[in-house]
């Protein structure tokens, strides 16, 4: 099978194995170049990112991203207080409730249902409440959890502003109409008084 084509495709070596011959071709130049380049890059990369103080670690990058994102998100409202006036004023806020809606969708729907209709967690749309009687207590329950851990504490997970926004979002869920045919969780706890009215000074601009 060794054909006399040494000139065209390279110079044939003398050895052969079970009829397989080999050319004495050099390794391609571009192959060398890229191989060498990858080695040089690797040396630089490894030492720079392992030892240089200029290179941020993954954890530092994460902390930076977190700071930047929250700053971007909450630059306008600063630090929210979890008090009654703030929560009431945020209820139905067109700018901030979508943010709370996102937090709810990520963390709350698996137990409370996508519309707050309740599943293994209580129905949030009715007038019955198990662990609270006042609107500010919503934020407390989110912060610290309830029902001996069945409702987890979110204080370590969420940004303080997110907790306040979420409290307003949940407060606003009360009285929401659930489409007929949706399975809701039976009422739990006691009927509590309606939330206080929204102060005029905040709502009417």
């Amino acid at each position, binding site marked *: *099978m*060794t*054909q006399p084509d040494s000139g065209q*495709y*390279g110079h*044939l*070596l*003398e*050895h052969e*194995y*079970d*009829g*397989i*011959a*080999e*050319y*004495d*071709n*050099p*390794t*391609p130049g571009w*192959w060398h170049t*890229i*191989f060498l380049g*990858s080695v040089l*890059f*690797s*040396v630089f*990369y*490894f030492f720079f*990112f*392992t030892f240089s103080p200029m290179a941020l*670690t*993954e954890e530092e*990058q*994460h902390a930076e*991203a977190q700071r930047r*994102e929250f700053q*971007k*998100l909450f630059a306008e409202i600063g630090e929210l207080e979890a008090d009654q006036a703030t929560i009431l004023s945020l209820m139905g806020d067109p*700018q901030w409730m*979508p*943010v709370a*809606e*996102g*937090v709810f*969708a*990520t*963390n709350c*729907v*698996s*137990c409370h249902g*996508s519309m707050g209709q309740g*599943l*293994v967690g209580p129905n949030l749309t009715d007038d019955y409440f198990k662990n609270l009687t006042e609107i500010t207590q919503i934020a407390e329950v989110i912060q610290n959890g309830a029902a001996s*851990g*069945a409702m*987890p504490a979110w204080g*370590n*997970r969420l940004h303080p502003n997110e907790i306040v926004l979420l409290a307003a979002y949940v407060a606003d869920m009360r009285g929401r109409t659930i489409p007929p045919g949706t399975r809701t969780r039976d009422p739990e706890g006691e009927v509590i008084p309606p939330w206080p009215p929204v102060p005029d000074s905040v709502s009417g601009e």
Partner: protein
Amino acid sequence: MSAARLQGHEGGGADAARANDHLDEFVYDDKIVRMFVWATLLWAFIAMLVGVVLALQLALPEANLGLAWVTFGRLRPLHTNAAIFAFAGNAIFAAIYYSTQRLCKARMFSDRLSRLHFWGWQGIIVSAALTLPLGFTQGKEYAELEWPIDLAIAVVWVGFFGVNFFGTLIRRRERHMYVALWFYIATIVTVAILHIFNNLWIPVGVLEFFKTGEVSSFDNLMKSYPIYSGVQDAFMQWWYGHNAVAFFLTTPFLGLMYYFLPKAAERPIFSYRLSIVHFWSIVFIYIWAGPHHLHYTALAAWASSLGMVFSLMLWMPSWGGMINGLLTLRGAWNKVATDPVLKFFVVGITFYGMSTFEGPMLSIKSVNALSHYTDWTIAHVHSGTLGWNGFMTFGMIYWLAPRLFQTKLYSVKAATAHFWIGTIGILLYVISMYTAGVTQGLMWRAFDSTGRLAYPQFIETVTRLAPFYWIRAIGGTMYLASVGLGIWNIWMTWRTRPPQYDEPIQYAAPLSKNYQDPPKPESRLHANIAFGDKVDVNILQGWWHRRLERFPMKFTVLVIVAVIVASLFEAIPMFTVKSVVKTIDSVQPYTPLELYGRDLYVAEGCYNCHSQMIRPIFAETKRYGEYSKAGESIYDRPFQWGSRRIGPDLAREGQTNPNAPWHARHFAEPTDTSPGSIMPSYPWLFEKKIEFESIQARVDAMAMLGVPYGEAINNAPQMAREQAAAIALEIESDGGRPNLADKQVVALIAYLKRLGTDILSPPAGDATAAGGEE
């Protein structure tokens, strides 16, 4: 280089002349090759059939049938193991047994070892096919098989296959070893090393037997815990996992290519020098690359960086094989148009080139941040297995069939159809999975203009993939059908075999004792620098390597040294540097029930769909919570970080969803709590009982591995019963199912409730301090 001049001669003088007169007579053992070819075809069909079932299960969860042993989590390991070790394994054995005999001009060392190897390996595959669906698994990808099978693999691989192969090398009648043999050597020694060191464990039942004189359950007998835990277990596993790809799916197939491609094309190999350089660079560099499977995890950053840069450096060594393959076809491209064998080889090698470009690319950290945990990885491995391993195998089988069965291939047309249907199948498969992977990766990290996650519910990112899962199932089915066509073609070929196979007698001279190497060539340098001259003669002119090729044992030792040295560079710091695993005071061992639940998590194969490793990436901590720390998994044997998120990450499940009634409803019917979920339901968890008495042995085995189990060392079953009763009560009092206190579901829930919570608890020391104040 003047290797052309480097031709030695067998002995010299009158003695040698007489010795050379003598020719040995021998016959090649082709029967064993035929056996391996049939086994390859059988397992190809089964492995791919299981693959199609799995593909359907993701598109259509009802296809899990509510049966424990066909759920995705149990079946997926069967698919991967069958594709790698049964299909590709038998294929490389067929290739090695056929080509080694011819390259060595010798029959295999021992027919008995050949048969033991064959039947031993098939036995291992059958036992894998029985144990994996039953839930006996080590829970580490591609290393799922439990300890008795691990032992069998070591015996068959080293004791039967290894001895047989090296025996043949020693008895060879060809002085120098051809490049294919180098790759086979690298395969055999490295796979042995990888297999043994990733599978060091304590078998629970054996330990129990020594302590108590009996084994309390069959599950305990089959169960083992790895000697490594958490980060180190992850490191060892991916050192193994990545190099299983390297030395089980790459090097033997390169060896296959180096023999069967020039044979089929009837062309010389493009470059002998390229063979040398790319062989050694592959052997040395591949071993380091494993940590790229663990980017952004709790693995130390230096290890992950090494994994990345060695993957980048691997690009050209891998392409060396592709170049040598494709350029060997110069002068034979016209044949590719007509010969299905060459078609398979060309596309196979092209897929090799594509996946060895894609691999380094995926190992770049910022690319990996997107691709990890998605179907992109699935696309990548299938372009490797279906394209490279599959097509090289089928090309080889179509070339072998007429020679092994000593007749004409039944249908060239059917073989060509096999090629085209298979190629379209692969394309549908990989393109749909690339799309699915990139889609899901982008959805996970997308924020909308208000700064919230654009897809806050994980399930949205799953349901979006359904169309791609259907396309993948179609592509996989086409590939399976093409394999079926191939099997039929080979079967029909076999039917036209002669009544008796011709076994031609081979003649070759034995190797003489007094071989003389060719004279060393002159240095081409004229600077009179001794070192420079040595480099030129030995390395650049290839004298040293050419000489090495006639010393199989020396060659093997060098391969072992290359592999082990490279491994130790990473492994030694991994196991000795303290900062690799920063311990966290509040992280405590699992309770007996949680441990048992964790073993169920492993047995059900939950890790096939759920990761337990939150990366320090903002979109991820926003979705799942605080990123995972190395100190959190120190009691995890095996680690369960996972590699794919078909479902959400569970690393903080105990923090975010500690609600037992929720989990009970979810296991009974996942769509009940999570509409749109594609998770199968697990009705048997509500029926199968917890074997409380078997838990003690598990706790003891863990304690032996250094887990500080205070009270539980004497009292595990009782502690487990109490915890189980409390959780059962929690479920029942919420209106959930009653009487679950001795059912497996409760143990699994106990484990899930614990996941990721320790980091919030006060450190163990503080708790006592607080107690002291009262």
